[in-house]
């Protein structure tokens, strides 16, 4: 006993001083930044009052111009579905080509770079670029969301393919199967349910995103919403927002059902 007490105390957990210092700095910066931005209590109270007035003007929602609303919603839906379909079709081969376990590095590298470029710009910026390049309307919105979809799901596809068991691939190769047969028999069966999950997720987010591209003139309900904001038609704004929320909810429920059925 006495022999052990003379030894230095053993630490079960090494103290991480760097982390503690970083957290302290972060806390100090947060407090300092909030003072710099003039976030005073008075400002908050004032903002609350303004918000209350806005809310008051939003109720009751005005569905009188329901035709305009429906038209916009349908256009958004079409943009989302079309962009998802085209995006998925482009992403399937890109995903396979970008998977480093199946394609050689001199192919996978450049394809990954293309996907990274698609991801690097926010889709609203891409939508603005397309509006400038090919003009106002749904085509620009669709093109922008195709780019966004490719950037997102081609990468997910590639990552899913990189996680497959190569033993199954090896067995199918050993039968004398070529590349396309290996894809059909050893790769797709291992990734198909995840691919469908990614596709549903992308359709979900394209629905959401398609409501926004209209604000920059790329078609869909977003344009109607932006116009209503500018005319201070807040009751119509409320109607549009409720309709968008309903649409997204509906999509969520449907894709949830589909996902559950696939399991």
């Amino acid at each position, binding site marked *: 006993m006495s022999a052990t007490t003379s030894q230095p105390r053993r630490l079960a957990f090494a103290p991480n001083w760097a982390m503690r210092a970083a957290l302290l700095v972060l806390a100090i910066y947060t407090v300092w930044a909030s003072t710099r931005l003039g976030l005073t209590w008075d400002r908050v109270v004032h903002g609350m009052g303004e918000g209350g007035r806005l809310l008051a003007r939003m109720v009751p929602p005005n569905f009188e111009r329901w035709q305009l609303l429906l038209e916009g919603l349908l256009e958004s839906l079409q943009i989302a579905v079309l962009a998802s379909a085209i995006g998925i079709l482009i992403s399937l081969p890109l995903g396979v080509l970008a998977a480093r376990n199946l394609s050689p590095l001199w192919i996978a590298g450049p394809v990954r770079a293309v996907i990274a470029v698609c991801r690097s710009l926010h889709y609203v910026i891409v939508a603005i670029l397309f509006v400038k390049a090919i003009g106002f309307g749904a085509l620009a919105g669709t093109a922008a969301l195709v780019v966004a979809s490719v950037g997102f799901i081609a990468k997910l596809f590639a990552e899913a393919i990189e996680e497959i*068991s190569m*033993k*199954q691939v*090896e*067995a*199918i*190769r*050993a*039968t*004398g*199967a*070529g590349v*396309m*047969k290996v894809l*059909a*028999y*050893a790769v797709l*069966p*291992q990734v*198909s*349910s995840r691919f469908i999950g990614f596709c549903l997720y992308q359709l979900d987010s394209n629905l959401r995103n398609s409501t926004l591209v209209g604000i920059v003139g790329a078609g869909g309900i977003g344009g109607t919403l932006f116009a209503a904001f500018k005319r201070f038609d807040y009751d119509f704004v409320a109607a549009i927002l409720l309709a968008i929320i309903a649409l997204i909810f509906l999509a969520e429920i449907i894709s949830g059902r589909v996902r559950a059925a696939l399991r």
Partner: protein
Amino acid sequence: MTAAPRAAAPASGTVLQIKGLVKEYAAGKPVLKGIDVAVPAEGITAIIGPSGTGKSTLIRCINRLVEPTSGSITLHGAELTGLRGRELRLARRRIGMVFQEYNLVERLTVMENVLSGRLGYVPLWRAWLRKYPEEDIQRAFMLLDAVGLPEHATRRADALSGGQRQRVGIARALMQRPEILLADEPTSSLDPRTAVEVLELLTRLTAAEGVPVIINIHNVDLAKRFARRIIGMSGGSVIFDGPPEELEQHHLRAIYGGEDWL
């Protein structure tokens, strides 16, 4: 033609001839140091030897899942090393393979797994649409009956036990109507009783179809029981090649080293 070393199997010719086979994963460090083996046209040839001695590499060099560094491998006189693209695929479909961990496509049905043995033969559209020729489907059912899984055609492969999976693996390999069957530790993931059952099945079916077998196996007793010929490897070289009766204690000492375990 050189005669098979020590002329172990009955003289019915050589189906597979390996000469001076060298494989280096890293330059200057050969895993296989010049292997010479002639595989007879019938019966089971077992390769035994300690882990890491290159048994698996040797078998995979034959169907080129592993690329040999140098040497020659001929199947019925036709050179296999150096084949590329379509020629390689045509060679692979003549060589069946059974794997240690079965390597079935887990999310496909048993029938799809068995029929995948025909992938080297059927056109792409038939493979994608599962429109296999009636003859292939009949043979698949026949093989499923033969391996004792008559009711399992529509089940998914991941629903099967280890022994059942390996039976499907054997059916898939035989579906190719192979000229030779490679088995890489086919029983190492199975319990002792299932291992014997699977080996009995493999022996019976390949004998019935006249397919010679090369099998990597850890278990020396099983090798002696089922093989007509045993090849002992150690350190990347063949150090025993003969019938099981001739395999004696001093050979095992030479193959595995030490003696306390004997």
